[in-house]
């Protein structure tokens, strides 16, 4: 498959996200820029300008009306998707690491890092109450004293947030009260990314302990494990096939000691039920930081440390491929 190369960032990509219908792909990077592209041909629609620090996370609501970004400039910003206008700026005490709209698009959550004496907090704002935005007062703010949150997604109906922590723990925080509803510890090292299945029933976690694990969103039951020999930076679940894709690499400082063969950094495809790897896609010049499936499952994208986003449309053979069983 010949990939579409998106060149719009000058530093490494931190997250990419498709909107619900899949026609738009959002990318954010360490260069303070948030871009939006047409996923069909890679043409750039526009940029959301305003952040003054690395942008760590991005999310778009179900209706593709608003965009949410979180950055190291200690702010979480809300934008109008179509015009690019900044709608709200929520100041924080430390970098915003992960953010997201809930299923209804009415409630946003974001987590802040443990930095400069400030703890890690998980904040909830109700967008239907403009006072909260104006006063920068979340209706619930949950402190995380033990291990900071490194990645988080909403549950299927907006009742809780599934958060992954630096120590490998996964917690379910109630969106109403902020209390911990469930917790599991299956990973042994930091969770780098969590992504939901398209129907939000499952979540896949990518961890520094060289594995990705599949969980049931509601019960947090551990269903599958996918093993590699490198830290996994991101993982995603195919909407239409029993496949998962994973991207990873190693610590930036160790990159020079691996084989410097060009394009060695690969996205790896595993069979979701058999936990076996069946394919790899080369092309990135550095570790892959984020992967995402198009909601129709016919293509996927990856964003790398090299600052490129690559959109890949699958060949017909991909859909026919079967492992003997």
């Amino acid at each position, binding site marked *: 498959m010949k990939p579409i190369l998106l060149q719009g960032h000058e530093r490494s990509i931190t997250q990419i996200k498709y909107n*619900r*219908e*899949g026609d738009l792909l959002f990318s954010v990077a360490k260069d303070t820029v948030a871009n939006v592209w047409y996923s069909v*041909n890679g*043409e750039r629609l526009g940029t959301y300008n305003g952040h003054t620090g690395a942008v760590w996370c991005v999310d778009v609501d*179900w*209706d593709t009306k608003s965009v949410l970004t979180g950055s190291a400039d200690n702010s979480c910003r809300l934008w109008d998707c179509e015009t690019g206008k900044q709608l709200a700026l929520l100041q924080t005490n430390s970098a915003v690491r992960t953010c997201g709209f809930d*299923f*209804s*698009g009415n409630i946003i959550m974001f987590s802040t890092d443990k930095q400069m004496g400030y703890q890690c907090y998980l904040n909830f704002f109700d967008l239907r109450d403009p006072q909260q935005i104006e006063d920068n007062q979340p209706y619930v703010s949950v402190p995380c004293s033990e291990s900071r949150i490194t990645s988080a997604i909403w549950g*299927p*109906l*907006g009742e809780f947030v599934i958060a992954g922590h630096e120590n490998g723990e996964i917690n379910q925080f109630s969106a109403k009260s902020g209390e911990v509803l469930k917790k599991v510890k299956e990973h042994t090292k930091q969770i780098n990314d969590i992504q939901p299945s398209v*129907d939000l*029933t*499952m979540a896949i976690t990518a961890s520094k302990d*060289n594995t990705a694990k599949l969980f*049931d969103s*509601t019960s947090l039951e551990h*269903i*599958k494990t996918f093993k590699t*020999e*490198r830290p996994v930076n991101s993982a995603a679940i195919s909407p239409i096939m*029993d496949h998962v894709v994973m991207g990873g690499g*190693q610590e930036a400082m*160790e990159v020079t*000691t*691996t*084989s410097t063969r060009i394009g060695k950094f690969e996205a790896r495809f595993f069979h*979701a*039920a*058999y*936990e076996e790897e069946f394919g790899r896609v080369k092309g990135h010049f550095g570790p892959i930081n984020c992967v995402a499936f198009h*909601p*129709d499952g016919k293509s996927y994208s990856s964003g790398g440390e090299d600052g490129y986003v690559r959109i890949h449309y699958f060949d017909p053979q991909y859909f026919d491929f079967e*492992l*003997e*069983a």
Partner: protein
Amino acid sequence: MQDTVDRAAEPEFEDEEEPSFSDPEDFADDIDDEELLEDILREKPLEADGIDSVVVVDNVPQVGPERLEKLKNVIHKIFSKFGKITNEFYPEVDGMTKGYIFLEYAAPNQALEAVKNADGYKLDKQHTFRVNVFTDFDKYMSISDEWEPPEKQPFKDFGNMRHWIEDPDCRDQYSVIYESGERTAIFSNDPKEPILVEERARWTETYVRWSPKGTYLATFHQRGIALWGGEKFKQIQRFSHQGVSLIDFSPCERYVVTFSPLMDTKEDPQAIIIWDILTGQKKRGFHCESSAHWPIFKWSQDGKFFARMTQDTLSIYETPSMGLLDKKSLKISGIKDFSWSPGDNIIAFWVPEDKDIPARVTLMQFPSRQEIRVRNLFNVVDCKLHWQRQGDYLCVKVDRTPKGTQGVVTNFEIFRMREKQVPVDVVEMKESIIAFAWEPNGSKFAVLHGESPRINASFYHVKNNGKIELIKMFDKQQANSIFWSPQGQFMVLAGLRSMNGALAFVDTSDCTMMNIAEHYMASDVEWDPTGRYVVTSVSWWSHKVDNAYWLWTFQGRLLQKNNKDRFCQLLWRPRPPTLLSQEQIKMIKKDLKKYSKIFEQKDRLSQSKASKELVDKRRLMMEEYRQYRDKAMQTYNQQRELRLQLRGGVDTDELDSNVEDWEEETIEFFINEEIIPFGDLE
């Protein structure tokens, strides 16, 4: 206490006379000494005191008074080595000494030292001392006449110690240390996938070693080493040596030598200890200044002798007595290095130039100490000894600076051990040598020479007709190490560590490159004992990522890549020497075709069995997954109402669920521009 009654009976007190305060004559007080003088009594010398420091020496020459003084001097000289002699007694009868004497030392431990070291001392042909502590006599005298059979020790059955050899599929075992030393596992090598035999957490604290015939696995601990074996890897034996860091086995597996830099004292040499494996006894301890060239003690191939080199001295000890062979070491002025032949009890050593005496290499036979061959070498800078695996050849790599030149030139002096008078042939090498290795079981050797990046690999054949022929030279190789198959003929040239793991698989029967491959950053190459498989590995000790071991066939075909978290070390389990006679081996080689057919059939069967197993496993996993998904979908469907509510009635369950709301719009995209020139229009 005296009774008041008695007091009343005393004579009346008179003014002039002094009262008598003495006890009445028949008074016996009923206070015993223990009560009054307990603390002093404790220090009362016991009859037995002092006897613990006395030794009895038997088989002392019986001499008359004229030689007594001399005898006493000799005895004194020998025995004062163990401590201060405070007393001596030479019983006599009829003017001659009886033949046994008593010596008293200042402390009991000195007496014990005397017993330990002087018992068995050969004064001369007729007199070998027997030394015992005096208290032992008491012990032996008081042995009851009734003999009680000793209590039966429960038999520690370790099972069949050679169990792994009996594997019907002839799989060799190997040990793997991973998780940076936390876990050690033993696998059985199957070309499809390694089969786990045993795995234990914290089995060893640093690394492991196999014994030379594969019977034992040695693990290291702060307090000493432990040996494991048998089918279930039970603990066979334990040797306590605080802080042990290095070990070595005798080739026969009867003894193990441990080294610890910690516990050495002047009186009790404990740096190096030699143990008897079967009994667990400490046989002998030695001092050791530095462990830089471990093993310090080198064993002869049959385990009968072990030797070590110290300044100007070569000390050879014999087993099982652990005493110096012929009671004295060899004085070899300037000795630089030595090694035993792997095939015979011959030591090769070399001494550098000394004024007008040239440097020379000497071959000496043991136990006779006969010099079989001496070879003079001129203008020598350094020598290295390389024995061929069967002891058929010795190669001495000689670095020389020829007279009148500045540079260093290398020669290989090849000693033909199996020929009469051990003739020596010389091969001159023009470039600096990186590596040298003999072919096991054969008469070829491989040399890596040159300077990076122009490194060459040369193969030589030592022929019977006195010639050494250069068979082939490969130039511009990425290699810094040579690994021959233990069976000979095949070998791997590897560029380890800094050369990024370049591998070349060579068949030396016709010197062809069978395969060129790479295991990026490989740090080690290990052949299995049969020469069928090669393992290349990236150890966590040298490189912190991509730790794994890869399995190849001897021809260089990659079979497996095994990633192990923080993989450290893989060691193949050695095999004991074959029990087949040469005749039997010949017969099997003749009928090889017949055997091949049976094995091939077996292989094919196991292949299909493996795929069937895999297929069954997959089916099961898919069933479980489907069940889970079905349940999840049920819940999902039940929640549909809630979802519609949350999104204001808009159905978003499928991508095209709200297709009626869609507007169709045709947009033209600018894709490409192509300018086609119509040629030059005149």
